[in-house]
């Protein structure tokens, strides 16, 4: 196992940031921690990267204990925090050189690992890090986290606030890194990114809701979901929320995802009800659950 977490808990005064968290990440796995702000993702990253002690429980990273062997872990992992943490007043090249030197290596030694990513920022190698665009900062931070060829890579919300194009490029990079013998633990609040991981843990309020492959997680969804559409979105949502048999009502793009509390639900009954609310152009069709549906059902 690359990462093994056993019954980890962490509190800050009254706030229970993590409650009895356990999971394992296999060698070369791309494992996603999926959850909103405040779920405890960063606290977990800080414990696993030896920057914070847990109150309870144990964990190992690359075979080393996070408390007793912390120095060995620091040499074996790369960590890209959620907040941009490179030196703003050093240039791109200086930052990379700095991190290589700290870890007793050189840019040349591990260049093939970062090459794909570095060539994209190389034209700006003499620019100060503080003057880079968001997407370029993110690429530089990833290069710096990789320059000592870590066994395990920790990426805390690398794509938050990043546009869909840059997000896709970033995930393509992660997939390529995985091929190079690196275990990756990545966190994200974007549910659509969950599908790109080998396995995911859904996390909210310091607790893990479920751990599995993305495919298995959506299969576990307990109910049939219906896409519902009508002429007026606001009235549709209001009417569905008032419907006595609803189990869940969530806007989803151009539709509302609806589940019914009855076992013998007949979509026609719902149509009649919605028509009685003066809605028209009503469409009700079965649809498949997404990770986000599952997350909301579990978090309810």
């Amino acid at each position, binding site marked *: 196992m690359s990462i093994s977490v056993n019954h980890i808990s962490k509190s800050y005064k009254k706030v229970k940031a993590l409650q009895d968290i356990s999971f394992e990440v296999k060698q070369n796995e791309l494992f996603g921690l999926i959850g909103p702000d405040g779920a405890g993702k960063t606290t977990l990253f800080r414990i696993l990267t030896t920057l914070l002690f847990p109150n309870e429980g144990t964990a190992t990273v690359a075979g080393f204990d996070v408390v007793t062997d912390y120095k060995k872990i620091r040499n074996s992992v790369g960590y890209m925090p959620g907040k941009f943490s490179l030196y703003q007043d050093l240039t791109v090249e200086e930052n990379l050189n700095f991190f290589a030197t700290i870890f007793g290596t050189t840019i040349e030694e591990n260049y093939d690992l970062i090459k794909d990513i570095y060539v994209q920022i190389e034209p700006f190698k003499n620019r100060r890090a503080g003057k880079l665009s968001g997407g370029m900062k993110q690429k530089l931070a990833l290069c710096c986290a990789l320059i000592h060829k870590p066994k395990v890579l920790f990426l805390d*919300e690398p794509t*938050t606030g990043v546009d869909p*194009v840059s997000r896709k490029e970033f995930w393509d990079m992660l997939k390529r890194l995985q091929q190079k013998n690196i275990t990756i633990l990545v966190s994200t*609040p974007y549910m659509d990114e969950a599908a790109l991981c080998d396995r995911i843990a859904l996390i909210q309020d310091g607790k893990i809701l479920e751990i599995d492959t993305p495919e298995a997680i959506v299969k576990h969804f307990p109910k049939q979901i219906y896409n519902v559409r009508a002429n007026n979105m*606001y*009235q549709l*949502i209001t009417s569905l929320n008032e419907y006595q048999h609803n189990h869940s009502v969530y806007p*989803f*793009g151009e539709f509302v995802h609806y589940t019914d509390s009855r076992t013998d639900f007949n979509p026609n009954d719902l149509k009649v009800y919605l028509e009685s609310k003066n809605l028209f152009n009503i469409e009700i069709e079965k649809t498949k659950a997404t990770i986000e549906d599952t997350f909301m059902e579990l978090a309810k």
Partner: protein
Amino acid sequence: MNNNKVIQVEGLTKTFGDFTAVNAITFEVEKGEIFGFLGANGAGKTTAMKMLIGISNPTSGKANVAGFDVFTHAEDIKKNIGYMSQKFALYDDLTVKENITFFGGIYGLPRKRIKEKSEILIQELGLEKVANTLVGALPLGWKQKLSFSVSLIHDPKIVFLDEPTGGVDPITRRQFWEMIYKAAHEGTTVFVTTHYMDEAEYCDRVSIMVNGKIEALDTPKKLKEQFKVDNMNDVFLKLARG
């Protein structure tokens, strides 16, 4: 001006030295419309939005927001719009009630009106129990919902939302959109930026900026037809990748 057009923009341009951040954009937004303003990081969205809310002077072009010209009546625009961003929300070290009172005061609402508004707002959001709690101690989702309500406290004609739901959990994100629908239903125009492409589908119309220009503008349905794809994410990828 046509009363139903609450934003009218024609050839609006902003340059910084040699760099053209916003390049002659033209569009209109109608009363009660939910208008999605999308684009990659660095495409010029924030610069364009700053001009529309009267805090940045355009280099050239025309823009009328809430009935006022951005060149000559920026102060009037500020009084007639609401603004909420992911970064600047509320004062963490003021309580829920104090924040409402403070922003009500900033917009010049009479004391009695602020008191009424404050009660309605706290009740609608279900924040009765935390009305006297410091905002900093509230979960992010609550803060964002409160922040949205506060941005509407002076009944603005238009509310500008700059990535209002970043990092928010999916249930709260939806409650937030229900609030947006409600505001639009009641006649407030909503101008919103987001990186969540499913949220783009919630908008009546969507514009997509690429390198300072508006490269697409239509209903999500028509954009998907135009680009022959089945979701907005693919529309975005096709456009922004060029």
